[in-house]
């Protein structure tokens, strides 16, 4: 099997740098915001990678038959997130990064909305959304 121990993190860093490059090298403000969004998604991806456990499943409790959803089918087995069901071990991935990233996604769209309304306002005042033209007009004043 291919060595997989750090591939995910490296790929996420590549995506992060793609977003970062769009953010610092483009003059168009909408393009910058798209780059910021790409950067943000890759940070989310990095956190979710931290929470993944190989062979694990989504952190939704699987109940053993008969107990009817009271959570007793899940038992403690060791330090890691193990559970026992019909004698077979169920591994759940770590739910904490998922919770944190749910918050991050929603805050991200709030940031995007605020940034875009700034872009609309800048376009109203300057007639352009290219950063170099805005600077030129500012200097002309």
């Amino acid at each position, binding site marked *: 099997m*291919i060595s997989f121990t750090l591939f*995910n993190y490296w790929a996420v860093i590549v995506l992060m*740098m793609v977003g970062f490059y769009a953010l610092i090298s*483009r003059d168009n403000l909408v393009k910058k915001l798209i780059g910021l969004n790409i950067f943000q998604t890759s940070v989310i*991806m990095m956190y979710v990678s931290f929470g993944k456990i190989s062979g694990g499943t989504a952190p939704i409790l699987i109940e053993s038959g008969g107990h009817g959803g009271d*959570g007793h089918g899940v038992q403690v087995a060791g330090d890691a997130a193990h559970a026992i069901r019909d004698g077979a071990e169920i591994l759940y*991935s770590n739910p904490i990064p998922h919770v944190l990233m749910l918050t991050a996604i929603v805050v991200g769209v709030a940031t995007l*909305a605020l940034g875009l309304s700034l872009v609309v*306002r800048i*376009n109203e005042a300057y007639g352009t959304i290219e950063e170099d033209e805005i600077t030129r007009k500012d200097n002309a004043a």
Partner: protein
Amino acid sequence: MTETMVQIVDVVLLILLAITGIAVIRTRNLFVAVMLAGIYSLVSAGLFVVMDAVDVAFTEAAVGAGISTVLLLCTLALVGYKESKPQHTTILPLFVVIVTGGVLVYGTAEIPPFGEPDNPAHQNVAAHYIHDSGDEIGHIPNVVTSVLASYRGYDTMGETAVIFTAMVGVLLLLSRGSLPKRVYHAGHWHKVKRGMTREDLIAEMEDEEAHDSTVVGGEDEEDG
């Protein structure tokens, strides 16, 4: 065997994401860039499913691929979709990006291996949430829901405060409230006088434009 399959899907999706991201940078049509950003969000939602984060995946698909795309398209309707050619060299940004990426890759040497159950991230409260949330919170099988709404409820409350602040900001920016102090139009800055309405300003600009076209070579005499 199934783990290998999962890893293949993971690698393919990550490569697709990289291609989409580079295409976003290369295109000069903002409409295309926005559509590609939507595709990027959707593919990353697929990747989140592969990494067991189903809640993150459907939020990303709804918010990232849905609402963000709608917001971006609304903006494009107001500002146009053409991006001008970059004026300056791209060597410096490329250098910064490569150095930053190199430092980050160097930093991954200390990261525990991907997917190991013994990683430090899984050792503290995570096990408690998984073992006991079924009993403590009561009949909610989805651990993410329990943590989001109960164990870390304050986090979610803070999030709503952030969204409220952003909404107030958007409303203040987009409502036709007070005018800026000066407006750039047809080659000069126009000072906005106190008590001036938007219509007055437009009328003044049109007057000046008509005046400028009669006086040939009118010089800029605007010392701010």
